């Protein structure tokens, strides 16, 4: 079980934090945002890090999940879980239909297409105001309850979002060591070579695209219920870019890299508040400096460095 030792420690820390610091703002409030962002970054990393397909429109699926829950529960009075499932089905269908033509594109063309998709969905949220409430969004979602327990406090949400996050991390770690994961990294390495090995690359890419979208949509539904409010602002082009930044900042292709990147980018605005007017400027500067000096991402670069130091001392093999 050495393979999952890192995950066990990570899970233990996440689950123990609210027990040790029950009233800490950073744990019970910022923590919720961090867990959602980690889930989204991990799902995007499946597509970008494992399969090597860039997406600048991931926030669209997150938003579709959130809006499906909000609209179906409030306007049509559906049960929250049923609404969540219907939202997921919608995203599965949409992402499946779009996956083949979009993933045929490569490099900058793929970046452009996913960017366009994200912007179109965002404009739809703003403009279709009879359905989505326009720029003001929708408030007043019903409380979600699990096994008869209403999830109505920060600490309960902490455990719900933490569990979903841990599941997605575990899934991501496992897929890397599976047949599907090896097929994905073959596609990442060279698509033609992967085809030569007998991998149906179009199918592999399309499956991971749908899966990644589905994970984001479920996170969106949970986000909508937790915030009790959805508005287009949360699902803009900027958020898609932020998600890409999380994945790349931590280290493309590494699950814990995505976790670290999401953690840093979620906590950074809280820390940078001390800079007041300089906040935006410092944020941009930090992004540039990390990518210039650690182009492989923080987690991967630091891990490699640590491994080198250990092997010099003769501890590592």
């Amino acid at each position, binding site marked *: 079980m050495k393979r999952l030792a890192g995950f066990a420690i990570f899970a233990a820390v996440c689950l123990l934090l609210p027990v040790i610091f029950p009233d800490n703002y950073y744990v019970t409030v910022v923590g919720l945002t961090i867990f959602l962002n980690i889930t989204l970054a991990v799902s995007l990393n499946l597509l*970008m890090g494992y399969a090597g397909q*860039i997406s600048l429109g991931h926030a669209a699926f997150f938003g579709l999940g959130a809006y499906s829950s909000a609209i179906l529960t409030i306007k049509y009075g559906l049960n929250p879980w049923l609404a969540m499932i219907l939202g997921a089905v919608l995203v599965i269908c949409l992402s499946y239909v779009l996956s083949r*033509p979009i993933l*045929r*594109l*490569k*490099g*900058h*063309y793929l*970046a*452009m*297409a996913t*960017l*366009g*998709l994200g*912007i*179109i969905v965002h*404009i*739809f949220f*703003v*403009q279709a105001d009879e359905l989505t409430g326009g720029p003001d969004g929708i408030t007043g979602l019903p409380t979600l309850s699990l096994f008869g327990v209403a999830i109505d406090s920060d600490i309960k949400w902490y455990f719900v979002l933490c569990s979903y996050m841990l599941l997605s991390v575990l899934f991501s770690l496992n897929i890397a060591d599976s047949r599907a994961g090896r097929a994905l990294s073959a596609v990442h390495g*060279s*698509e*033609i*070579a992967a085809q030569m090995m007998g991998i149906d690359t179009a199918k592999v890419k399309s499956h991971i695209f749908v899966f990644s979208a589905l994970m984001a949509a479920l996170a969106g539904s949970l986000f909508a219920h937790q915030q009790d409010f959805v508005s287009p602002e949360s699902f803009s*082009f900027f958020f898609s*870019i932020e998600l*890409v*930044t999380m994945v*790349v*900042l931590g280290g*493309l292709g590494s699950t814990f890299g995505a976790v670290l990147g999401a953690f840093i980018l979620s906590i950074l605005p809280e820390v940078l508040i001390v800079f007041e*007017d*300089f*906040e*935006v*400027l*410092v*944020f*941009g*500067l*930090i*992004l*540039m400096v990390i*990518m*210039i*000096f650690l*182009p492989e991402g923080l987690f991967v670069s630091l891990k490699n460095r640590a491994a080198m130091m250990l092997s010099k001392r003769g501890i590592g093999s």
Partner: protein
Amino acid sequence: MDQLLQFLISGLTVGSIYALVALGFSIIYNASDVVNFAQGEFVMIGAMSAIFLMKAGLSYPFAALLAIAITAGVGLALEKFAIEPAKNATVVSTIIITIGASIFLRGAALLIWGKEIYGLPPFTSNNPIKIGNATILPQNLWVMMGTAVTVLAVKYFFDRTRMGKAILACSYNKKAAYLVGIDVKKMLLVAYGLSAALGSAAGLLVTPITFMSYGAGVMLGLKGFCAAILGGMGNSMGAVLGGILLGIVETVGAGFISSGYKDAIAFFVILLVLFVKPSGILGKGETERV
């Protein structure tokens, strides 16, 4: 019919601006394989500098020239301090670097100029000219003429001058260019400076019509990227054509369908084009080396 003519005039104006931004995109892309997400910020910096130089008492032409020079300086600094140190970065890393740069420049603009929206006076009189039942503002003409002259000058620069050809050589193969004695580092700097200057020119031309604020560069930059992709990434004249097409399609679409969906129409068209022809209108298909 008159309505269509009016839309075409507006579309051609917007399209000219997209064309300039897209041309800047493709110059940087050609020279360094970087998709520069800070391109829209050049437009904003050019316009905002001119506005504040004029507020400080400079005359219009002098403020405009100085604003172009300032923006070109920002372009040089971007290459020198952000792109050059990261020369081994992957495509995705350089995208993040330029996104970081655009956030940084926006943050700086917010600090220096604040959140207010500003305008520039039109270059010449503001009396609309009638063409049939459609009207055209002298500033619309300035935008189209300015773009046409700039594009021709850029084309001349790349086709006829030694330095332009040297930059093109770098874009084909940096090592080979270096071996025939071209100062590759200097050419990259020139490309970034030129691209930034083009962006600022776009900003100066368009601000009398649309106004400018610290955040207005983002959408312009994205549309420029759109136009460059539409024309085929790396094809300069394709980028110009893409920009003009995008402007017209977007304005006509917004006029006949819904102005709220204006930007959505532009991106929808891009998606359709990419689905049918994955390498843009004038782009050549890439072959993957195995």
